[in-house]
């Protein structure tokens, strides 16, 4: 078995490695079990984390990538049994067909999500660019930074620097309030380490509820303004 982390670097080449080795390929697994006959079974999220699938490799060799954060960190063993040092094999030509020209920042700054004590995140459920204010108002009443899920950024409702998730910012604030966020696996990876997680969503089956400490099954357009009003009344009172 070859295990790799499911990062944007390794998950790009891992399937090619599986083809070259004639191995089975299973991506972004969150757990693995070994049955008494020595067979491996992997669990992974499918259909945008709405369901889970148990998958078995059919080939003797398997290449799998592991979802970041799927396993708690273990204390390092004192000395690994064997560590191989591998140099670049002499027969590997430097590839010219794919050349890295450089790196650049994906968006402008001005939003400090990783350093925030509290974050209120707008999800697709806010409904549109003019309705993001419902999340912004609650953020301001909570003295929180404003976050966004990927669909909100992709639709242009908020700039990319607000994005929480594996392709945006990984955050772990004291309080995380998700408004109308369904909770894709990438989003959950980016915020599930928060100390207190609140989710407001009309859909009781939304995956965000699987990580929420407090879940409100209701329309965020009713609940968020009510929260904002209460917080503002307290502040002025």
């Amino acid at each position, binding site marked *: 078995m070859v295990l790799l982390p499911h990062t944007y670097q390794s998950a790009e080449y891992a399937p090619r490695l599986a083809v070259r080795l004639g191995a089975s390929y299973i991506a972004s697994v969150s757990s693995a079990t070994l049955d008494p006959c020595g067979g491996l079974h992997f669990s992974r999220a499918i259909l945008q984390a*709405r369901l889970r699938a148990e998958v078995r490799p059919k080939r003797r060799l398997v290449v799998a990538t592991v979802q970041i954060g799927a396993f708690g960190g273990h204390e390092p063993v004192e000395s690994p049994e064997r560590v191989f040092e591998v140099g670049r094999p002499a027969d590997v030509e430097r590839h010219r067909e*794919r050349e890295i020209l450089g790196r650049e920042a994906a968006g402008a700054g001005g939003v400090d999500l990783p350093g925030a004590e509290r974050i209120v995140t707008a999800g697709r459920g806010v409904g549109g660019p003019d309705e993001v204010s419902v999340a912004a108002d609650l953020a301001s009443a909570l003295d929180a930074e404003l976050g966004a899920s990927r669909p909100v950024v992709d639709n242009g409702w908020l700039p990319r620097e607000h994005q929480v998730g594996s392709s945006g910012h990984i955050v772990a604030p004291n309080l995380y309030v998700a408004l109308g966020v369904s909770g894709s696996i990438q989003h959950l990876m980016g915020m599930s380490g928060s100390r207190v997680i609140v989710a407001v969503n009309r859909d009781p089956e939304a995956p965000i509820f699987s990580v929420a400490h407090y879940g409100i099954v209701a329309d965020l357009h009713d609940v968020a303004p009510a929260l904002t009003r*209460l917080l503002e009344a307290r502040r002025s009172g």
Partner: protein
Amino acid sequence: MRIGVCIKQVPDTDSHLRIADSGREIDDSDLNWVISSCDLCALEEALLLAEAQVSRGEERPELVVFSLGPARVEEALRKALALGADRAVHLADEALQGGDALADGRALAAALAGANCDLVLTGAQSDDLGQAATPAVIAEILGLPYAWLVMAVELDAPRQSARVVRELEGGMNEVLRLDLPAVLAIQAGINKPRFASLRGTLQARGKPLHREDCSGVDAGLVGAAGAGTETESVTLPPAGAGGVVIEGVSAEAAAEELLAHLEREAAL
């Protein structure tokens, strides 16, 4: 120039998902089927590249769309034709069905090789299985350079290479140059997929859609026989983290109750 676009038809993730009696797949009797969202962005990117070449006074590239799946997939291919693709190839043969990313990638690679594409675009990952593997498998089998999570594509004037921006973690992008032909897996959200016009829908009826059986490929490498994995069961995710659920009360009552909890948690 010819651009191939691979699309996958997937269950609409907003539709209610039920697990089939077998416990190994979802019940597909009552599902809405749509083109996977990243694949729509890949098709849109191909259309934008074609339009950019026309506006530079160059010949419009031919856009060929490919999809593997049962008869229902024809609807997705017709939609792609309505959006502006020139012709469609349906990998409909029974022997090609039931595969995983390795098997599907092998069948698609064979069909793409037959079409002699200069550039292959796909979505970065499907909305259903989301392994992000099929485009990489296609690139490996065709021996082509590959980039995943592509955020921008520019073709150079002689169309020998592409300048590609790809997404990394933590708000960074990587800028690459890839020789053509190449396989590019397009990230969601890099463009706004257009809607099909009535005119496009009518024109699509007259555009060629042909079935490809991949007869040149070893039958043991495609379909269920060529799959490297087997799905043993599909289940609902484990219920919540034991969290407190507030429902069935007014918004004001829910807000009051939540704030009381948050004060106790010292989260305010």
